[in-house]
């Protein structure tokens, strides 16, 4: 008797668990659908013709798939008087983002290494000041930075934008690397010093090879920041050096006559693709780096 009642109670709770589990999955699925909706609308709209957009339903699948909008967005859409699409601006963004990410990551690694392992008088103050730099709203520095760029003679140029992004990325990259490097025992530096290695040798041969996980984190962070930046891009560029975010804004806001939703959507997706790419590619290495670190012991 007792046995039977036990099992029925057990199977009841078992059923309850399964029902709960399914409710949970359904709720999560709905959230995911809700979250993916805008992307869905963007992609379908970008594949429709203008006529279909005007007459059709917003969330309907395209009756006829056409890549015309993508072609226009890439190389024909007009920003004001020029009609060359986002292509030149896309390359501008790449020319800005890649050196800026590389330089700020490398300098951040070096700074973090110094702050964590080559303690000097005032190291804490300098680190605090750099941290403070992370929290300065960018609007505040626009005017002084414009003046600085002017004095340096790189206002409105791509090197100028690289410079700005490196400066404002340094706070974060230094913080990332410093926090990673303080977990490396100082005995490692001491052993290398006794072995005869100097400042740069220890950095290159011992610290950098250990840094893959944090390099990936920093690259993802910096690339997203720099690629998606609009404020610096719009403030410190001139015709011909604008990044893709600024171009996107111009395409969407400066059309006259009929609003080409399909082109706008395609241009927006193009502008967002590189960050997506970095997440997908580097994210894998990120997780791999993390597990490698945990097994290291």
């Amino acid at each position, binding site marked *: 008797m007792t046995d039977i009642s036990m099992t029925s109670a057990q199977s009841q709770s078992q059923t309850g668990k399964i029902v709960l589990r399914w409710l949970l999955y359904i709720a999560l699925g709905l959230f995911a659908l809700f979250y993916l909706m805008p992307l869905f609308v963007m992609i379908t709209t970008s594949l429709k013709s203008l006529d279909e957009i005007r007459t059709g339903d917003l969330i309907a699948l395209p009756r006829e798939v056409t890549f015309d909008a993508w072609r226009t967005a890439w190389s024909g859409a007009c920003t004001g008087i020029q009609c060359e699409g986002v292509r030149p601006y896309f390359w501008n963004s790449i020319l800005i983002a890649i050196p800026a990410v590389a330089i700020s990551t490398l300098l951040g690694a070096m700074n973090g290494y110094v702050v964590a392992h080559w303690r000097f008088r005032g190291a804490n103050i300098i680190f605090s000041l750099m941290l403070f730099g992370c929290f300065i709203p960018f609007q505040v520095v626009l005017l002084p930075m414009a003046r600085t760029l002017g004095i340096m003679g790189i206002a409105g140029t791509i090197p100028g934008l690289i410079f700005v992004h490196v400066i404002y990325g340094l706070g974060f990259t230094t913080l990332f690397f410093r926090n990673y490097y303080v977990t490396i*025992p100082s*005995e*490692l530096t*001491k*052993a*290398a*010093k*006794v*072995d*005869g*290695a100097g400042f740069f*040798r220890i950095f290159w*041969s*011992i610290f950098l*090879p*250990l840094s893959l996980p944090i390099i990936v984190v920093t690259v993802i962070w910096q690339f997203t920041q720099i690629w998606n930046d609009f404020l610096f891009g719009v403030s410190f560029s001139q015709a011909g050096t604008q990044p893709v975010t600024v171009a996107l804004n111009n395409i969407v806001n400066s059309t006259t006559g009929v609003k080409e939703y399909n082109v706008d959507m395609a241009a927006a997706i193009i502008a967002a693709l590189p960050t997506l790419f970095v997440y997908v590619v580097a994210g894998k290495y990120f997780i791999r780096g993390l597990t490698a670190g945990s*097994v*290291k*012991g």
Partner: protein
Amino acid sequence: MSPILEIKNLYKSYGTTEILKDINVSIEPGDFLVLVGPSGCGKSTLLNCIAGLEPITGGSVNIDGKDMTHVSPKDRDIAMVFQSYALYPTMSVAKNITFGMKVRGVDQATQDKKLAQVAAQLQIEPLLNRRPGQLSGGQRQRVAMGRALVRDPKLFLFDEPLSNLDAKLRVEMRSEIKSLHHNLGASMVYVTHDQIEAMTLATKIVVMKGGVIQQIGSPAEIYNRPANLFVADFMGSPAMNLIPAKAHSADGGTRIEITRKSGEPIVLTDTKNRDLPEDVILGVRPEDIADPDLRGAEAAQAAECLIDMVEPAGADTFAVMQLGGKHVTARLHAETTAKPGQPKRLSFDLGKVSYFAPETGLRLN
């Protein structure tokens, strides 16, 4: 022979905190110097000062007759083994060992030859292509030793190299370090907080406390004639019994009286030491309080004691009692008849006894 390491009037402070005060030590070539003391006594800092990893505030450090006070670590001709081993995690064992030579620009053939030599010596040939992460604690320890050995330095420095190993491995590595020292005839400075490690390894021990040297001497000197109460208490396990007592001059020596909670005081006669002040602290090693039948020494005198506790430890049995208001441990025979709560006749051997002044803690005899 000139000393291989000579430290003169060394001071070290961080800001206003003095870490090391007036350190003077020197060792001859082939010596095994052990710096021992409780945590925070400055022994590791002193080692780092010898290595040049910490700048010193005052004084001088000479290695092999050359003033190295302001020389960088790499030019001091030293090698160091760290507590955490500090192996380079991304390099193979072979690369770890040859890193120093690579940095110094030693040619490849010499590197290979020395690597093979050291690997054979430490029996780590099968590990050469592995990463430190794939090694056990004992193997990492060996690699760290290999990295030091390959330099063939004037002076080896060890910073608590065995404290991360389990008890069994620690004893194994300890005797290995000892035989290594014996075979190489190298000069070594070794930091530990483990007084047994200090006793077994050292040819010379420096006992430190609060940044001040308490005593320098051979293991036997430190053990048998501790300079003060701190050294007496710190070195030896179980610790030396430090019993408050009264001393009176008497015929044929000094009468030592130890009060007891209950019953008559114990009265012992010391025939060797005279002219002691009245209040003393009597230092007796546990092995000098033993079963009477096992002692033939003339200095031994028997007294009845109430045993509080009996702790069998295999080879010996420790009996704990109350004398002069202190717990006193006696090292008895394994098959002793001592039982807790029962009186037992014990013999006190005053042949190697120490006396300390209660106020200053300094040795009197």
